[in-house]
């Protein structure tokens, strides 16, 4: 039996991948049957520093919620998606929007002669509940989030836009699914915008669901007393003005010293 072992220059070339295929195959066949060369091989194996660290880094890195992943390819900054997707809040928000829309369809269909009242009571609140759900999960971190330098207005608008991206089409669809709603299919839009902004303003003082509760109670009061007037031009202009005023209040609340969460 010929006793030979792989020599140092051959190992170096093998490790660097510069041996010709025949010599490479010969080294591999030999090593398979030679314990001494298998032991020697370890000295030439390329060092693998940081491999475990890299593996650990990959498995600990949080992944964006599945529905948000495609948005990265649309060029939305990853940091914005982390804010929107924190604690899976946006998935809950979208589920609330769809469930709210389905419940509204059901209630409006079953309401009979009171269809108009049921529609006006429920539908404008669907976007409000969806937006509030987007804030609820991270509400407990206010005390930690408040002293961070990020623009609170930007965070509020990011979350609200992400929620409304599903809530508005879902709500608008109700008008097309339920027959006989006539002009009501567009009447809800301006009041709903006002209610969403009111909830966002109140959320600078209150917990998300408390803000939603207050807004809903006020809306139920408004609809019960003047629901037949809501589709008039005057009422619609009034809601537009209210929405504009609330938008200004929201900007002030998120930029002046009287901070949100300062309870």
């Amino acid at each position, binding site marked *: 039996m010929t006793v030979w072992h792989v020599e140092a220059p051959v190992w170096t070339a093998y490790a660097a991948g510069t041996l010709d295929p025949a010599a490479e195959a010969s080294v591999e066949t030999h090593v398979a049957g030679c314990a001494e060369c298998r032991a020697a091989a370890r000295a030439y194996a390329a060092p693998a520093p940081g491999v475990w660290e890299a593996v*650990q*880094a990959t*498995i*600990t*890195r*949080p992944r964006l919620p599945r529905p948000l992943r495609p948005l990265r390819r649309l060029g939305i*900054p*990853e*940091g914005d998606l*982390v*804010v929107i997707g*924190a*604690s*899976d*809040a946006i998935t809950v928000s979208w589920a609330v929007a769809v469930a709210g829309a389905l419940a509204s369809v059901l209630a409006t269909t079953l309401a009979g002669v009171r269809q108009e009242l049921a529609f006006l009571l429920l539908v404008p609140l669907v976007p409000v509940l969806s937006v509030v759900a987007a804030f609820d*999960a*991270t509400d*407990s*971190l206010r*005390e*930690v*989030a*408040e*002293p*961070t*330098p*990020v*623009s609170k207005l930007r*965070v509020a608008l990011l979350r609200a836009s992400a929620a409304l991206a599903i809530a508005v089409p879902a709500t608008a669809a109700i008008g097309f699914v339920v027959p006989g709603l006539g002009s009501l299919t567009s009447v809800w839009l301006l009041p709903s915008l006002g209610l969403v902004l009111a909830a966002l303003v109140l959320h600078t003082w209150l917990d998300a669901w408390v803000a939603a509760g207050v807004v809903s109670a006020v809306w139920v009061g408004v609809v019960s007393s003047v629901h037949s007037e809501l589709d008039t031009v005057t009422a619609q202009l009034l809601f537009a003005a209210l929405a504009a005023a609330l938008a200004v209040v929201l900007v002030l609340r998120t*930029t*002046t*010293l*009287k*901070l949100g*969460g*300062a309870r």
Partner: protein
Amino acid sequence: MTPVASLTDVSKRYGATTALHPTSIDLQTGVIGLLGPNGAGKTTLLRLLSTALPPSTGRIEVSGQEVTGGHAERVEARRRIGYTPQEVVFPRGMTAFGFLDYIAVLKEWKGSGARHAEVRRVLALVDLGDRGSMKVARLSGGQRRRLAVAQALIGAPELLILDEPTTGLDPEQRASLRGLLSGAADTVLISTHQTEDVAALCDRVIVLDGGRVRFDGSVPELLATATGRVHIGPTASDGAVQTWKTGTGLVRSVGGQPAPDSSVVDPSVEDAYLLLRAEQRFTEGVTS
């Protein structure tokens, strides 16, 4: 020397209650301990300085930026502050890494590569390097406390404000956190009930009581207020603030008239604190 942070005539009222009377404090570099009973105004002071709470009156500056001034200056100040509140309620379902990643985004770490490296750095600092992928709900109380501290360390702030960071930690974890905090930032302000932490860690002690600063000085200066006033002997001192029988069978007395056969012992920070509190209660009793 220009202070890292300063409060000038800062006060805070909640309706009819005054949580903090007009107070002026300059914070230089070093570790500053804030001592005081529950309801003394410690948390209010820390929240005011952290910008989580607006003051009723006065002016707060951090690194030359006026927190109580315009929005831009406040944002600039916030970039230099790390704050751990007394209690952090973590959102459901978040992992330790996910929580820190979210806070890092709020602290303007935009690029994911650098941000994830920073998250790993602070996780390792608080000995949670191997817990990143765990759900926060599955971490122990001590681990959650350290995670709450870790978020304040993101971005290596100049001013670190920690509200009772050692609560719920075992002695080993406390010692390790002390080691971390002593070099974590230019200025570290911690409130605590653990007088040993103050003795072991702080260059300066501020004692707050009833919304007012009752003592502000170095640890040796605080100890000096109790020198010669702590005794040990077979019987308790007459009129002592606190007495207790030690393991040796002798009675340790803080304050009061020493019994004839007792001897003076070196005071601890706790002794000095208890004496300060007793004097405070006495003054209140006389004036009310």
